[in-house]
């Protein structure tokens, strides 16, 4: 490692060079002198020749090596190549913060075949937590510019990867995704510099927070199919399988690194600067000593003895072959020096154990992830989205409902009606999973469960109605108490029974094709195929070639801050059905049929709203009521088609936001938007733009001047708001990409 410069243009507060006990950089020349460089190159060549080495790796380092300038870099790389190339293969690299990378510098690096690693700690908020200029200014934009430069085809070969320092305050998956978005050929994570005298930050009560952080990345990385090598994780996986490590951070590999300081002195690994002042010093230099003399220095020699060089605790540790005692610098403690386990010992152990069973090379089976894959997110971000993407969103919904129900189950134990319902649902989920699925997918089951969890409704007993509906669908005979509210028993997806009595519960016995109800001494038999007058069946209608619920009975459908229509007369229901059918058929021919797949896959229920007294068009979608859209009667099927597309966009984005962070939730700033008088939160602007993008797309495909005007209006609204979103700095990396792709769709229309 060649310290080409001793200063840096950044002032990262976690830097081991400047912010830690060893302050020897203060006596170093700013830039390595030509004579020092010549001597160093000669020493390295001499060493390679003496040991007949096939290859030598030299890493240009600092401080910030780019402070040497394009000319300085050219001189250094040229000198090293001239001296070393004739005796061994020279693998020349540079580790940089990237801020000063320019095309001119890239040309020099390409000419001398220097591969560059860039330091980046995540998205803008993660990165700027530490990596700032001395005046506090962000380095993020400059670093991203550097990475974009390295991705250019002409420089791509010189892009070695990204080095990221872990910070527990940053969300691990967000950091990982921010790094992945830079398309690096490799990622490496570094634990923060720490030792027993300066232990790492550990939030109370968490014994191994660093392992947890890295394992969150690990899970996501496996689920993504390991799109990029992550050196630390791959080394752990490799050593777990008895292989070699690729990093000195773990494993029993021998230390073969020596540092040449800017003034030509030999030092040990520079991360020792974090131990104590003077820790890395050897008293040797390139003018008077050979590399071999440095290698014989007791501390470096000790690090070449593998297992024997470790402390007694590590030598006896069952995972020592995988862990190797961690990074040398992390072992330091005043008094015992480096004769200790790593200060990250507990985290390392946990990591090693967690790697057991991770396949060494290709993932055998992908684990479930908690977020959408990049391909699906990209597809949806375009505005339309394939049927497969929509199906993934429907799956998210089902996963969410199931999570909500399980999370509610301990509370259900305190309510006898709910408890019996939960037991039945658990059994049916094994015996008749399909019937359970159909009921749980109903939009208002999730809405109810969400409200219960939020404490907005205490109606836990409704769990029995959910279970009873599944039992009736499955044709399983069971008896249980079900709740009656306002004299009505609601059974989700099936309908409602008017018991005409003010009782808290009724006793229901399910049968093939229906159920019996015992209420206030009366017995009612309900055959679904031929029901009594008191039964209001859910209206299953066929529209657009598929089945939909025209939902006018469910007790939880009233959640739109707009008045819902009461039970429809049969003639009104027929008109609604006809209207919906025409609108959904229309969708197949409009906007290239681009919205038909998602609407077809996601729209399960339409809730009729009362008409607006002023005659305005009305429609709505509600959080957690996934799959349902509320609409007031629309003037014609063209207008209804737009309303349906609009609301399904909200459903799509809601499901995306269920599992993907597109913006910083803590950011409470609001934006002024053209379609509303009041400033909107980021989430509201995202929703508005995503819906309006689709509405513009629909009008774009329609003929006539009125359609053209509507198209322009929605397009302009969307453009303005998207640009405001992109400029706000509140989006995550994924959000930036999502919004950027919405913008691309708009741009493709001009």
């Amino acid at each position: 490692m060649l310290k080409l410069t001793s200063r840096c243009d950044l002032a990262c507060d976690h830097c081991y060079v400047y912010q830690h006990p060893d302050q020897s950089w203060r006596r170093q020349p700013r830039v390595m002198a030509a004579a020092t460089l010549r001597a160093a190159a000669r020493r390295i060549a001499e060493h390679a020749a003496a040991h007949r080495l096939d290859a030598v790796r030299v890493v240009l380092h600092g401080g910030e090596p780019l402070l040497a300038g394009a000319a300085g870099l050219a001189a250094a790389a040229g000198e090293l190549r001239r001296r070393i190339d004739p005796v061994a293969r020279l693998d020349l690299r540079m580790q940089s913060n990237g801020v000063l990378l320019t095309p001119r510098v890239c040309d020099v690096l390409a000419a001398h075949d220097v591969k560059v690693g860039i330091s980046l700690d995540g998205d803008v908020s993660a990165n700027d937590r530490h990596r700032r200029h001395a005046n506090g200014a962000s380095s993020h934009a400059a670093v991203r510019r550097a990475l974009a430069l390295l991705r250019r085809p002409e420089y791509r070969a010189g892009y070695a990867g990204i080095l990221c320092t872990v910070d527990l305050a940053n969300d691990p998956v967000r950091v990982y995704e921010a790094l992945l978005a830079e398309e690096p050929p490799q990622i490496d994570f570094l634990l923060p510099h720490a030792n027993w005298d300066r232990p790492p930050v550990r939030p109370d009560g968490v014994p191994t927070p660093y392992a947890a952080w890295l394992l969150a990345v690990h899970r996501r990385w496996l689920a993504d199919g390991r799109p990029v090598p992550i050196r630390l994780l791959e080394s752990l996986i490799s050593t777990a399988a008895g292989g070699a490590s690729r990093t000195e951070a773990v494993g029993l590999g021998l230390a073969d690194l020596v540092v040449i300081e800017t003034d030509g002195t030999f030092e040990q690994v520079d991360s020792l600067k974090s131990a104590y002042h003077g820790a890395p010093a050897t008293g040797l230099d390139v003018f008077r000593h050979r590399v071999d003399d440095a290698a014989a220095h007791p501390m470096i020699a000790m690090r070449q003895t593998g297992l024997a060089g470790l402390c007694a605790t590590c030598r006896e540790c069952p995972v020592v072959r995988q862990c190797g005692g961690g990074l040398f610098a992390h072992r330091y403690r005043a008094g015992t020096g480096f004769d200790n386990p790593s200060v990250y010992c507990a985290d390392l152990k946990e990591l090693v154990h967690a790697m057991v069973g991770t396949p060494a090379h290709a993932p055998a089976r992908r684990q479930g992830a908690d977020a959408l894959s990049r391909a699906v997110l990209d597809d949806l971000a375009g505005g339309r989205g394939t049927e497969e993407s929509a199906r993934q969103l429907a799956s998210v919904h089902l996963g969410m409902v199931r999570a909500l129900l399980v999370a509610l189950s301990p509370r259900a134990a305190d309510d006898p009606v709910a408890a019996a319902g939960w037991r039945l649902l658990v059994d049916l989920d094994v015996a008749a999973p399909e019937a359970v699925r159909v009921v749980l997918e109903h939009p208002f089951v999730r809405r109810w469960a969400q409200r219960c969890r939020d404490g907005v409704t205490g109606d836990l007993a409704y769990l029995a109605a959910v279970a009873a509906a599944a039992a009736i669908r499955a044709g399983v005979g069971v008896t249980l108490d079900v709740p009656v509210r306002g004299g009505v028993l609601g059974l989700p997806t099936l309908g409602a029974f008017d018991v005409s009595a003010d009782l808290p519960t009724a006793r229901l016995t399910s049968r093939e094709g229906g159920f019996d109800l015992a209420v206030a001494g009366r017995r009612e038999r309900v055959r679904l195929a031929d029901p009594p007058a008191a039964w209001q069946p859910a209206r299953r209608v066929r529209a657009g070639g598929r089945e939909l619920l025209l939902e006018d009975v469910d007790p939880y459908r009233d959640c739109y801050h707009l008045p819902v229509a009461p039970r429809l007369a049969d003639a009104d229901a027929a008109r609604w059905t006809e209207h919906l059918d025409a609108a959904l058929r229309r969708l197949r021919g409009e906007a290239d049929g681009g919205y038909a797949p998602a609407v077809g896959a996601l729209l399960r229920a339409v809730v009729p709203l009362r008409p607006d007294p002023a005659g305005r068009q009305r429609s709505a979608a509600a959080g957690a009521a996934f799959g349902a859209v509320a609409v007031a009667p629309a003037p014609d099927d063209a207008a209804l088609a737009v309303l349906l597309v609009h609301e399904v966009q909200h459903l799509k984005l809601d499901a995306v936001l269920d599992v993907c962070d597109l913006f910083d939730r803590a950011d409470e700033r609001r934006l002024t938007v053209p379609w509303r008088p009041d400033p909107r939160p980021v989430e509201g602007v995202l929703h508005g733009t995503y819906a309006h993008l689709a509405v513009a797309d629909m009008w774009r495909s329609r003929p006539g001047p009125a359609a053209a005007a509507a198209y322009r209006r929605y397009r302009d609204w969307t453009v303005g708001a998207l640009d405001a979103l992109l400029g706000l700095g509140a989006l995550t990396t994924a959000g930036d990409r999502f919004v950027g792709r919405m913008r691309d769709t708009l741009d493709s229309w001009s």
Partner: protein
Amino acid sequence: MDRIAVRPDQIPTPPPLDDLRHTALGEIPLSRARAVADAHHHRVNRPTGVDVQGFGSAI
């Protein structure tokens, strides 16, 4: 920095929360369910959350 990149395999990624759909309700760990439900709770119940989106009046 010295390895050939692992080729990402071609199996499409399963949908998120796959485990919750493929584990029987009675066997889903409470901790897992709570983690997912809590994340959702925090999303929909923060002051800047958007509960209902509507056309014309309340987007």
